[in-house]
């Protein structure tokens, strides 16, 4: 019985950990003509930094910290590039939603290709 009780405690802790480390992923396409150059990269990093979750961005070859402007500038994400965004933490879903809005809906407030 004692062992069973301890197991239950361990499972509960595991559940709590899972709640705090929710992982959300999304594939976002760069839609502005000039691609993810420094100004859009700064907007991306600014939004990413509003969240507590860890945010990683990958272009398939390179996986970088979504909160670092130098890292994001390394992605060379041209118009049409699909980036995989991964957020892990208590506000992971909100972070992904905000980044999706910036990249795909607002396309960084920049023009799309003619």
């Amino acid at each position, binding site marked *: 019985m004692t062992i069973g009780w301890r197991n239950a405690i361990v499972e509960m802790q595991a559940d709590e950990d899972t709640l705090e480390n929710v992982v959300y992923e999304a594939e976002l396409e760069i839609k502005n*003509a000039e691609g993810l150059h*420094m100004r859009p990269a700064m907007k991306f990093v600014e939004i990413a930094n509003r969240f507590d979750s860890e945010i990683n961005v990958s272009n398939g070859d390179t996986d970088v910290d979504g909160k*670092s*402007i*130098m890292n994001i*500038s390394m*992605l060379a994400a041209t*118009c049409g590039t699909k980036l995989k965004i991964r957020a892990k933490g208590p506000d992971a879903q909100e972070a992904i939603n905000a980044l999706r809005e910036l990249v795909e809906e607002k396309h960084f407030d920049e023009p799309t290709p003619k």
Partner: protein
Amino acid sequence: MKLRDFVCFEATITELQASDRDGAIAELVSAVDKTGRLGKGKCEEITREVIKREKEASTGLGRGVAVPHVKHKAVKDVIAVIGQNGAGIDFLALDKQPVYSVILIISPADEPDKHLQAMESVFKHLQQDRFRKFLRQCRTPEQIEDLLNEADENPSW
């Protein structure tokens, strides 16, 4: 893209005279102009545009480096130039610290992908502590060229 594909080593300045942002930008654009790669009479215009871009948002991203840049029809290929100031430049950097190494980039107006590739190449190295430290230690244009060639050959740096 490798650094040596677009860095103009002839124009390297290892001791910038200016200790302010606009002065450093003017010196670097002028150094590229002297190599004859900007087309006649474009030096001042490009300098003004780089400064204008810088006023919108600082490219002094922290850790002692700045990457001022502009897209301009005067160039057909990306051209970068490196300038250093051992005493530090007030570049209005995001971390409010002085800038010791400046990499100024002039990209063609209508080739955004080339610009992004050059930026990738620059930041891949600049984000490495060791690369920034070595760059700051360079005292001659030859040392900078050697360092960049070495970095090109060692992508894992």
